[in-house]
């Protein structure tokens, strides 16, 4: 399946876009998404160790399974407040 992933801050800056489309096997987990992004988007490889992923606006565990149509975002360490 193809999954859109929203990008923010340094991740958006590295890729030059606020969203990427990632190729994934069906029912892939967040852990597999991490690997797929490292492979398909080399500029993001070194930030991936530090980021969390959000699925449908909640932080997701590495084991969370991704389904078509879910809203996925790559969340670098936050610095609001």
């Amino acid at each position, binding site marked *: 399946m193809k999954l859109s992933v929203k990008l923010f*801050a340094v991740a958006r800056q590295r890729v030059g876009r606020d969203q990427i489309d990632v190729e994934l096997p069906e029912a892939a987990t967040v852990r597999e998404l991490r690997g797929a992004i490292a492979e398909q988007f080399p500029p993001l490889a070194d930030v991936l160790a*530090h980021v969390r992923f*959000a699925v449908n606006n909640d932080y997701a565990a590495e084991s969370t399974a991704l389904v078509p149509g879910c809203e996925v975002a790559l*969340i670098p*360490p936050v*610095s*609001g*407040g």
Partner: protein
Amino acid sequence: MIQLTNHPIDPGAVLDQVASHDAGAVLLFLGTTRELTNGRRTVSLDYECYPAMAEKKLTELEAEARTRWPLTGCHVVHRLGHLELGEASIAIAVSSPHRVAAFAAGQWLIDTIKQVVPIWKQENWADGTSEWVHPGMTKP
């Protein structure tokens, strides 16, 4: 109530949101744009957020604060976009019958917002460079 805004924060309006005849204590916290960070000079900041998730997380945190402490009011405003020196990036106001709860809730809210709400700041340094701030992430 929570709010994300591109306009300057008016502290008086934030305080008005938590006024209550049942409140004996009102606490307002403002995060402001500091000029020096580890000796480097900032000229301005830019904030961006993941809007849907930032609103959801702020709403959840407000609800959790109201569960943990007996608050008579709780209002959080986060500024987005371009901020000049001295401007407030966040205002947190809480009111409570007693001050211990107001202090505890205010401190918990700012600590927790800084950990979980998807908002990011970019420092615009005096030397002309800009840099997204990602605590714990090593520089490229």
